[in-house]
């Protein structure tokens, strides 16, 4: 029973264009969402997060959008760069929990 779903295993975009990575969740108790980025042979690193009291959070080229009614969030990367090529994991946690629930990840390839 996957509570956090990333339905696209992979995504390929051209350098300079927008990358949009999607994530859906089923647990209405989730109130904090995070995106992690993972390069091969390295551990995941935190990228950006959003609380359920917001619908958008920006950090440089990265923006996360949250649609609570649809239980959907997305990560936008503009403009995409070859160094953004990595696996991106969506994660969520309910209020007061120490635990994160991760999606399966989406492999982004940015072509020069």
């Amino acid at each position, binding site marked *: 029973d996957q509570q956090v779903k990333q339905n696209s*295993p992979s995504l390929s975009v051209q350098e300079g264009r927008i990358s949009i990575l999607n994530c859906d969740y089923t647990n209405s108790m989730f109130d904090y969402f995070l995106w992690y980025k993972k390069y091969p042979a390295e*551990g*995941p*690193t*935190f990228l950006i997060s959003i609380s359920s009291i917001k619908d958008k959070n920006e950090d440089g080229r990265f923006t996360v959008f949250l649609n609570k009614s649809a239980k959907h969030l997305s990560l936008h990367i503009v403009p995409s760069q070859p160094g953004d090529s990595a696996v991106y994991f969506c994660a969520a946690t309910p209020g007061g929990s*120490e635990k*994160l629930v991760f999606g*399966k990840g989406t492999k982004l390839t940015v072509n020069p």
Partner: protein
Amino acid sequence: NAGVTQTPKFRILKIGQSMTLQCAQDMNHNYMYWYRQDPGMGLKLIYYSVGAGITDKGEVPNGYNVSRSTTEDFPLRLELAAPSQTSVYFCASELAGANEQFFGPGTRLTVL
């Protein structure tokens, strides 16, 4: 700060052998976690700890044990290795309430 460190980076075990995966953090984080990542899958929580002397099971604890005698260290023990435990293991830590987990570089374990 070294952050979260894990040893070894790679290990091959025979079925039935035992080993301990080491994890240490120097950020004075209260929370520590062990995850496994199988190919094409997200991160699954094995065990976690909210402080020295306190541990709790995650989603996939069978076949593993942990201890947390100090704030810094959180070793993961495999008692009777099985091929199903072939995976990449990540340790992570978090400052209580911060929601952002910091990950180590991972240990790639193969059980033959």
